[in-house]
């Protein structure tokens, strides 16, 4: 597959960037996330994490079951700062 194929659309990350990092020894999604911001855009990894996980499997001879997933923190989707700041006990 072409190196310039986009794997994470939110953060514009290419297959080459991903593969280079795995070759360097970054073989967990958490490490890759921290190094590349993969999965940290608006979709929060819904689109790219599976693609990246499959690439790790291929390059490190793992199965999808063995992949350690990164933590899922709130908020699930983007939220405006003003919304959080305006938090009050209303019905």
């Amino acid at each position, binding site marked *: *597959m*072409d190196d*310039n*194929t*986009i*794997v994470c*659309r939110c953060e514009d990350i290419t*297959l080459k960037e991903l593969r280079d990092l795995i070759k360097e020894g970054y073989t967990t999604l958490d490490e890759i996330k921290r190094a590349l911001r993969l999965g940290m855009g608006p979709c*929060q990894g*819904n*689109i*790219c994490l*599976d*693609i990246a996980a499959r690439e790790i499997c291929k390059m490190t001879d793992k199965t*999808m*079951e*063995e*992949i*350690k*997933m990164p*933590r*899922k*923190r*709130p*908020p*699930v*989707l983007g*939220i*405006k700062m003003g*919304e*959080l700041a*305006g*938090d009050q*006990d*209303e*019905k």
Partner: protein
Amino acid sequence: MINTDILVIGGGPAGMTAAIKASESGAQVIIIERYHELGGQLIKQTHRFFGSKKEQAGIRGISIAQELTEKIENHSNIRVMTEATAEGYYEDEVVTISHENKFKKIKAKKVIIATGASENMLAFENNDLPGVYGAGAVQTLMNLYGILPGEKVIMVGAGNIGLIVSYQLLQAGVDVEAVIEAAPKIGGYLVHASKIRRAGVPIYTSHSIKKAIGENSVQGAEVVELNDNWEMKVGTEKVIEADIICLAVGLNPLSDLLIQAECEVVYTPELGGDVPIRDENLKTTKDHIFVAGDVAGIEEATAAMLEGEIAGLKAVSEIGYSNENIFEELNRLKTELNKLRSGPVGKVIKNGIEKVRRGNYVGKNRYSHLR
């Protein structure tokens, strides 16, 4: 803080039937939905459903959504919150939501998570060109807003979604140039496949998309044959012209809230991804939390509606809103669900569910290292 008996997260087929069932015994129910109306994927499903008569066979998805919405509106003890996104699940069982641009907290005695699924993406060259769509987006454009996505489409995926959306595209006057399927066999029902074959659409099994072609937008795609190991066969590439590439390559359960709540989830390919361990009443490993619909495993809307009913009924019975017929009713629903899962597709799903049954599950929680 908003307090309630039952909180249903997700206003699709599973969430709607869960809310209705839970409210019938008198419990206070809140149902939250991200979109501005209830119905989930049903609101774009213009085709008739299969399955048993009792479970809405022969009726179009959009009509089912209308019927369930009316029912919910007629129950004064259901509060509907649309444009409401669940943002977090915390250890004191509080759910935070963003509702009409306000941040709110809800605490319920039982929570039914029916968040559905997201579409899978495929990695191929130029997959970021305008004109590459998910099948969900194509359905939204066509069936909800009456907008044609393009003139010529290449459909990737011959599962039910790929086949049904292909047919809907044909009905809308769009040329479907080809359906590409990586597996050696058509995944969806042959009834759907025959319909589009009769219309002259070729279905290429053991084929994949190698790259999208085009400068500023899609002008076609290079497709390639796959060998028995699903590897691309060099020299078999061919170019198909199209201005739309539509991806219908499966769905992934939206299990974020379940994982935040530390429900045990197990990676189960038969069910589409990380799905919760549950008992036969759809209760997760957390006493507070039930699941229903695609988040519990990718399946059809008819199954989702039955799961919603089971979860809704069981959840209210556990907080004291029970009736004498509950066991009969639960058994009836489970029998219906079982009948629905006969046939080859149902067999795969049943195998998957067996793997995530509470008490004797196999497989791995891919999030357990975080505890």
